[in-house]
């Protein structure tokens, strides 16, 4: 059984009179320990796919399973604690709460666990250490560079040791040096810590770092190797 199983998912958005069909029967598996880059033109449904996996949005029909639990049919009260345990999410921007320090931001998911104060502090420091920002713990987001902010966001995404790390264009607003830092970090998380990672990106260099690249176009997933041909991924 794959870690993430997407089965026959339809998703459409209603905007006033017209309906936008993003996927019509999408099926896809992601294995544990995989590191997948998701590419595709704007509006092809990349963000929507991450949202469905994280339970932030629901498919119109079809099922999304993560570790065997059917995310697509959970209630919002069930989803919140499930998400805290299972998903680490990083957006393109606005990830951090501006009123909290780096340390407090990273600690946020741990507040939802039963860990004591001391344990939370330890884990937070480890996570900040992994992203190389142990010396910036007491800085507020506005005192950090864009790349550092994204690394804090990644520290928060990994601190509770989730099953799956989802990143939606995490390097979209970074210069090449900062992007490099972030990509390097993701690579290490996958290599050394065996984290399952899915990253949405427009940047071919970022995609190169992943173990697999998927191309989403008109609601259909194509593997990079198949791009020249026209095969449809299962």
């Amino acid at each position, binding site marked *: 059984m794959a870690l993430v199983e997407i089965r026959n998912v339809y998703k459409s958005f209603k905007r006033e009179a017209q309906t936008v069909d993003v996927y019509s029967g999408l099926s896809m598996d992601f294995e544990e320990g995989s590191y997948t880059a998701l590419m595709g033109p704007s509006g092809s449904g990349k963000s929507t796919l991450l*949202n469905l996996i*994280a339970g*932030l*949005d629901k498919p119109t029909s079809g099922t999304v399973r993560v570790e065997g639990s059917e995310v697509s049919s959970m209630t*919002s*009260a069930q989803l*919140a*604690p*499930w*998400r*805290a*345990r299972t*998903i680490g*999410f990083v*957006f*393109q*921007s*606005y*990830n*951090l*709460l*501006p*009123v*909290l320090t780096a340390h*407090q931001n990273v600690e*946020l*998911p741990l*507040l*939802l666990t039963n860990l004591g*104060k001391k344990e*939370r502090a330890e884990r937070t420091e480890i996570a900040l250490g992994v992203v190389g920002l142990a010396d910036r713990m007491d800085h507020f987001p506005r005192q950090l560079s864009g790349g550092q902010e994204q690394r804090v966001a990644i520290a*928060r995404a990994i601190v*509770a040791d989730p099953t799956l790390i989802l990143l939606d264009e995490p390097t979209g607003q970074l210069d090449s040096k900062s992007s490099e830092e972030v990509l390097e970090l993701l690579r290490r998380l996958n290599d050394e810590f065996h984290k399952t990672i899915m990253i949405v990106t427009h940047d071919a260099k970022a995609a190169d770092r992943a173990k697999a690249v998927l191309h989403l176009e008109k609601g259909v997933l194509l593997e990079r190797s198949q791009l020249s041909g026209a095969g449809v991924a299962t």
Partner: protein
Amino acid sequence: MKFLPLVIANLKRHKLRTLLTTLSVTLALFLFASLRSVVTTLSAGSEVSSASRMVVQNSTAFVIPLPMSYANRLSSVPHVKAVTWANWFGGKYGDGKKFFAQFAIDPASYLAMYPEIQVAEDQKQAFLKERAAAIIGEGLVRSFGWKVGDNITLQGTIFPGDWTFTVRGIYHATLKEYGDDQFMFHYDYLYEKYPDRVTPGWFIMQIDDPTAAPGVAKTIDDQFRNSNAPTKTGTEKAFASGFASMWGNVKLLMSTIGMAVVFAILLVTANAMMMNQRERTSEVAVMKTVGFSDRRVFGLIIIEAAVISLTGALLGLGAAALLPIVTGFGQGGFLPGFHVTIGTMLFGIAVALLLTIASGVFPAWQAARLPVVQALRRVE
């Protein structure tokens, strides 16, 4: 409470806004408690009055006196055990800026009827013996520094002339609502100077059974109905609140103003809370993505509102409670015994909780039902 740092951080986001919102709640509750205390103090004044004391006054107008001959006729009414009388003097001391009440009383019978007025036995005897003697409340000692043996000259307004009294006693009011800023002297002293004008302003009777009061009142008022000084008899409580209503419909006015103020502040606070929340839409979305449940998000925002309203409330109620003590306002003047009751404090806390709900629930509910995906699309 591990979420507390989160609440505090959010309160510190706009320090000035938080401070101003808190201060407006402080002001609202200060005004609320002060205005309500005027009402409770006035009502308490009428509560003090012993249920077994009744007052007879002229039914035509409170200021028109009654014939002295009524004293004997009142004492022969069934259930009436004792009768005394008093007169309003209305004098002025010095520049007259500090007001205090002066009564001419029938000394022995009056003091016997009012156990609330406590005077040392030797002072009492000295007062009873001397025609121009006066007893004064402890409040007047505080205000004017008078002491036993002082000669005090008042200017009569109703009864013209300079009137000099010698302080022979200082009384302590066992019930502070009774007031300890009264100046009392011999009725006979007044009568001597104006024998053809002075008759009792009102009579006070002790009855042996409070439940007989309505019957007693009817008997007396019927008896004098067709005389040229018809009477209005009631319990002392009714008499005291009659005094209070001379101020106009104070209670209604105060309560209305109090409520209007609280309501206005409520709108200000609710508005500030909603502005706060609107700015934080994307942050709420991030918290939910991290795994905060809708209920937790709701709770955190309510707590934030509660911290503001309860802090403001405690400051406002505390100030209202301390003010009469620090300034001595409760000691004299028109509102003897002015103080903030426990009831008013609890009422104030209840108002603050209501404020929390009113200002916090709407933004909290909005944040709780905010769909993450929608919220993030708006900002990105």
